[in-house]
C-alpha cells in the first residue's frame, strides 16, 4: 500500500524523483562515480558506448568533419578519436554579419578506455551522417568451468 504511493507516476514522490533526475542531468549531483575520462556536457563530440555479446560499439557525434582526416587510434585498451573542424563562417569579410555562433570549431581529442576482452586486430570505423562509428570485436569469453565437489 505504501509502495503504491512511490510508484504512482504523478504522485508527489514521482515528481520529486523526476526533479532529482532533472537536476542530475543538469548539474550531475547524484554522487555516483563517473568515468575518469568523462567530460563536461556539451563537449564535442559526444560519445555513446554500447556492448553486444560479440563486440564493443562506439558512436561519436561529430558533424561536419572530413572523414579522411579523422584520426582513430587504439593503444593499450584506450581508444582515441582526434579531428579538426574548420569554421564555415567566412572570416574577415566586412560584408558578413554574424548573428549566432554556437557550433564549435578547432581540433579535438577524446579518449575512451575499453574493457580488456577486446580484440585490437578486429576494429572497423566508418563515418556517416556526422556520426563516427567504431566497432571492435570482443574475444570469445572462455566457457564457464564446472568445478567438481569432492
Amino acid at each position, binding site marked *: 500500500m505504501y509502495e503504491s504511493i512511490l510508484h504512482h507516476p504523478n504522485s508527489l514522490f514521482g515528481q520529486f524523483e523526476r526533479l532529482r533526475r532533472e537536476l542530475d542531468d543538469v548539474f550531475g549531483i547524484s554522487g555516483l562515480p563517473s568515468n575518469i575520462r568523462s567530460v563536461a556536457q556539451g563537449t564535442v563530440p559526444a560519445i555513446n558506448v554500447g*556492448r553486444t555479446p560479440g563486440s564493443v560499439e562506439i558512436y561519436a557525434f561529430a558533424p561536419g568533419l572530413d572523414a579522411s582526416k579523422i584520426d582513430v587510434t587504439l593503444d593499450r585498451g584506450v581508444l582515441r578519436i582526434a579531428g579538426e573542424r574548420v569554421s564555415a563562417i567566412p572570416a574577415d569579410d566586412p*560584408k558578413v554579419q*554574424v548573428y549566432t555562433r554556437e557550433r564549435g570549431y578547432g581540433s579535438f581529442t577524446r579518449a575512451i578506455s575499453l574493457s580488456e576482452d577486446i580484440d585490437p586486430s578486429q576494429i572497423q570505423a566508418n563515418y556517416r551522417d556526422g556520426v563516427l562509428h567504431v566497432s571492435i570485436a570482443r574475444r570469445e569469453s572462455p566457457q564457464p568451468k564446472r568445478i567438481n565437489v569432492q
Partner: protein
Amino acid sequence: MSEKQKVSGPGADQQQRTVQPAIDVFEDAGGITLLADMPGVPRDHLEIKVEGDTLLIEGGVQRFTPEGLEAVYAEVQVPRYRRSFTLSRELDTARIEANLKDGVLSLHIPKQAHAQPRRIAVSAG
C-alpha cells in the same frame, strides 16, 4: 531573424524530448545562411517547414542499434533535434536552399529581389 522560445510543460516534455541543435547564423548581401549540427540525421528523417513567417527545422536520429546492444555509457540520449525561427518579410521563403552533409544542415535564405541593398543617390541642391 529571431528565435522562438520553446514552451513546453512537463507532460509535453515526456512525450517527445527534443534538443536544440547548435547553430551558426550569418548574413551577407544575398541573404541569410544558417548552419545546424544534426549528427545522425539522414536526409529522409529531416524536415524543414515554413509556415507564415516561422521556419522550423526538425530531424530524427536514425537508430543504429545492432542486435543485443546494451548501453554502457551514453552522453547523447535525445534522438530528435528541433528548433524554430521567426523570419522577417524581406526574406524569400520560396527560394530557400537546403543541403545536408555529414550531419550539418546548411540553409540559405535569399532576400527578396527588391530587398537587395540599393545605394540611394543623394542629390545636392
